[in-house]
């Protein structure tokens, strides 16, 4: 209770309330995430229920257009799925993939950064060289190639079943070096502190020192990077799915929906691609705006 009161009174919340851009983007983001998480409860239809789909319903335009239909607010796609419901479920998939991919990148990157920074020497040199080399390539290219290699290496049927996990792995692998570099930097600083020396003197194992003593002290900047990377991971997933190497149309994410809609752009059914596109753009824009505000709010030099 006291902690809550202190939070409500903090500079942090004050600067948030004073900044209309931050408030609006937080609101947009909350709507996106809320709609996605509660999709099974809120969505007007279940787009995965094949029995309820009818091709008679396909390509219905949005309700606000002349020959629209009030039962499908923003129209239907080529298979007769209600677009609003498909977008809500699609956002759910997009956020799920992005969040798990970043969690994976964070875990892997933090572990590597800790080991490299604490042990130093040859281990450090090799690990950081790998990170450097990977950082010269854009993350999306790495994700694309990792996904391609796994597609070739895994048996077809197994790959199709594990598609979403392959995607999470590919995006996570593409984003670990940034975490590793940051954690290594802070670990190098922490390694020289007295509390680490004390732990070494009483004979704790390196592993114990890294996980229970240094780790809590290097996590701060990692969380900021994770927030900023979340937006990028959402874009990675959408891009891969749009390119057709991500998720299949049976379990569409926002990128898959845009890909499907792109096929019908020329025949005049613009809404199938535009509405998922607007959702994606609004979500990423608000993550970026919030990230900008967060960076400024946490930077005492700018006050």
């Amino acid at each position: 209770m006291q902690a809550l009161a202190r939070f409500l009174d903090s500079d942090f919340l004050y600067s948030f309330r004073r900044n209309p851009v931050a408030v609006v983007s937080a609101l947009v983001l909350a709507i996106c995430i809320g709609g996605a998480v509660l999709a099974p409860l809120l969505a007007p239809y279940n787009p995965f229920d094949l029995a309820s789909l009818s091709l008679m319903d396909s390509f219905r335009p949005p309700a606000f257009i002349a020959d629209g239909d009030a039962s499908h607010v923003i129209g239907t796609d080529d298979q007769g799925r209600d677009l609003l419901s498909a977008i809500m479920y699609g956002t759910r998939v997009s956020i799920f993939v992005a969040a798990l991919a970043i969690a994976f990148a964070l875990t892997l990157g933090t572990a590597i950064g800790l080991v490299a920074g604490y042990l130093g020497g040859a281990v450090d040199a090799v690990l950081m060289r790998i990170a450097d080399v990977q950082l010269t390539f854009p993350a999306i290219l790495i994700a694309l190639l990792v996904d391609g290699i796994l597609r070739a290496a895994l048996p077809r049927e197994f790959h199709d079943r594990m598609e979403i996990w392959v995607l999470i792995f590919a995006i996570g692998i593409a984003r670990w070096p940034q975490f590793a570099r940051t954690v290594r930097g802070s670990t190098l600083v922490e390694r020289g502190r007295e509390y680490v020396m004390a732990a070494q003197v009483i004979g704790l194992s390196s592993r114990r020192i890294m996980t229970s003593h240094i780790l809590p002290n290097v996590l701060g900047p990692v969380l900021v990077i994770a927030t900023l990377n979340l937006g990028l991971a959402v874009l990675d997933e959408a891009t891969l799915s749009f390119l057709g190497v991500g998720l299949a149309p049976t379990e569409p994410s926002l990128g898959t929906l845009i890909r499907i809609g792109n096929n019908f752009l020329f025949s005049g059914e613009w809404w199938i691609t535009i509405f998922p596109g607007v959702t994606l753009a609004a979500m990423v824009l608000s993550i970026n705006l919030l990230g900008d505000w967060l960076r400024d709010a946490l930077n005492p030099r700018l006050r």
Partner: protein
Amino acid sequence: MFAFIIARLFQAVPVLLAVAAISFAMFAYVGDPVSQMLGQDYTEAQRIALVKALGLDQPFWVQYGRFVWAALHGEFGLSFRLAKPVGGLILERMPATMELALVAAVLALSVGVPMGVYTGIKRNGLLSRVFMVLSLIGVSLPTFLIGILLILVFAVLLGWLPSFGRGTLVQIGGWSTGLLTLSGLKALILPAVTLGMFQMTLIMRLVRAEMLEVLRSDYIKFARARGLSQRAIHFGHALRNTLVPVITVVGLQLGGLLAFSIVTETVFQWPGMGLLLIQSIAVADIPVMSTYLLLISVLFVTINLVVDLLYYAVDPRLRIGRGGRH
């Protein structure tokens, strides 16, 4: 200078060898060419003979050495999908990607730098605010969405520009160019704008941030005190000193342009290397994938080297001592 270039080249070689090892490992461990070549009916003796003939019984290092040797001679094997030599396939499509990426880079620089300077000088002006909002949208919209929106507006609704392909091409030696015909140029506009948009906003924001930083510095105050014209201060003194980070980012982003050309080429069905890669990934065409990886890393390493050399040209401080920090 010379020693610096040699040192950088020696640093680049292990990176390239490591990438070559990865792309060779893709060849060696993913998929089974022997069973594909043998077909359904074969005896064990036939299989062993083929393995011997292909040199697959040799140790990893010997095979890897032969792979690197062949790659240095431009031989990358056959595409599984098209049954043609991969080197030729990629070379054929290289001009399309290069023209697209270069035009996008020029576009991004020639629009991004002036916008950045303007928003840096007139930081609270109305136009500056409009530019900043636009740039934020440009950063947040994914490349493929920008492409789709441009197609919707300029190809579907207005019908001004083509939405796919390269238009009429002219062959100059082995290089097919679309820059010399009207339809080729028209076909290039939408893809180049799509690809250059992200870089443009990035350059603009970077130049703006650097300008703000530099304009606060003592030597700018001194220049003002000397009574130099605004123009001389902004362009002769301030902009010049923002160039080092700008060159770094632009150089590194040139690699990004090549990577994101994969997306742009898919949206516009632009017949370049990126579209080839996507078509190959979809059917697990390993030779094309590993060759693309090799080729793009050679390009990236070259770009990094050129960026380092440009530092030298722009920042005289780096010429003292040998190479400095980088």
